[in-house]
């Protein structure tokens, strides 16, 4: 079946099987920043933005994304290749160790900051509750989201 969607600003038309997940078709077409962790909705490593909301792409059929706008980690930065503030602060705060969970965590945090520009640490923790990290213990990642929120509020960069 044909699936037509916009990925990171590019219109894509792909063939997919009716039972394929969005995770599978994204990775099959080179969007490997979308990580295949548990494929069961538990780890959150496959999160992408669909029409601006963070979702587990392993729990969506590819056909459900037809006509939608999908953003992966490759598409969240500036057009000139500049990092999104969340990408930069994740590095600055030391939130990245093995890095496997980070693309999804950044996308989930971006969704949060779009709707809640000044979240508390508890709100950040709650919103990231579906993104598992086995390396860091989350403290530095929450630091990073707080730092990015402050940068975006001050308008120091285009988020």
């Amino acid at each position: 079946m044909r699936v037509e969607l916009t990925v990171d600003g590019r219109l894509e038309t792909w063939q997919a099987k009716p039972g394929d997940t969005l995770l599978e078709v994204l990775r099959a077409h080179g969007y490997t920043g979308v990580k295949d962790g548990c494929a069961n909705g538990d780890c959150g490593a496959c999160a992408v933005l669909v029409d601006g909301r963070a979702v587990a792409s392993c729990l969506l059929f590819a056909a459900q994304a037809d006509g939608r706008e999908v953003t992966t980690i490759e598409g969240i930065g500036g057009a000139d290749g500049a990092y999104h503030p969340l990408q930069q602060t994740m590095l600055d705060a030391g939130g990245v160790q093995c890095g496997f969970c980070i693309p999804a965590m950044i996308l989930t945090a971006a969704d949060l900051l779009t709707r809640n520009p000044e979240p508390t640490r508890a709100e950040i923790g709650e919103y990231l509750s579906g993104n598992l990290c086995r390396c860091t213990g989350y403290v530095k990642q929450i630091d990073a989201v707080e730092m990015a929120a402050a940068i975006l509020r001050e308008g120091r960069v285009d988020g």
Partner: protein
Amino acid sequence: MSQSGITEYLRPATLHEAWAYISGGDPKVKLLSGGADLTINAPPEVTTLVDIGRVLDRAIHTGTDGAVHIGAGATLAEVLEHPSLAGYASGVVPEMMVHVGSPLLRNFSTIGGHLARGRLSDVVPVLIALDAQVTAYRNRSTIELSLAEYLAGRHNERPHILTFVRLPALDDPVAAAYLRIARTSFDFPILNCCCRVDGSADAVAGVHIVCGATPRVAERANQAEAIIREHGLNPSSIAEAGRVAGEEVPTGSGWVASADYRSHLVEVLVGRCLTTVMERLPI
């Protein structure tokens, strides 16, 4: 993981077209709303998905009658965040909804899909405690019935599509509370409980005590409710209602909890929930 048994994906343009696909009751054909359950747990006999995500209403609004109307296509996140529900019954809907999975699930799972699934739900006990009504579509007609009746199965055996949820207007004062026990913050509940009291602690006009994930869908604790109606809300009546609820609510054993453990949780959660309700009611 790809569901290789699914060979057909249909995108109906209207509710009736969607209903027509399922009207024959063929177990190979399954409705798809949000999809979280079907991507990982599609029954092996299912070969055809009927995507109703774009034909369901997803609006949430407060009607002129004071009731909150929720389109079945609304996501759990939209229900969680909607201002109409922030103050409804002391905010018990968002209080509960924040425990359903994680944002990555709530952002696309729909309230209609969740209720149609029914089991292991945080949502169901709360909506039953709030006397929620649901609307089911079938062959160009609709039927409105209570969620409790709907889940009891007498009305949902014939092919239908759940289209709306309605939370009735409540008379102040009213307070409600929700508690759950689960292995992790976003796991399915081992047991949960919602209590709602209308009136005041001394003069109780109405009481709902509903336990879910017992592991049945949800059970009202009628004898415990009678104790609160008769004696009001105070520490001794709450303790007695919890004890009675622990005895009357049927519980079952599963791989995460025994029936005995669940019965003990019923007593504890009912007691704590009623205490919170008492604190939330005006003095």
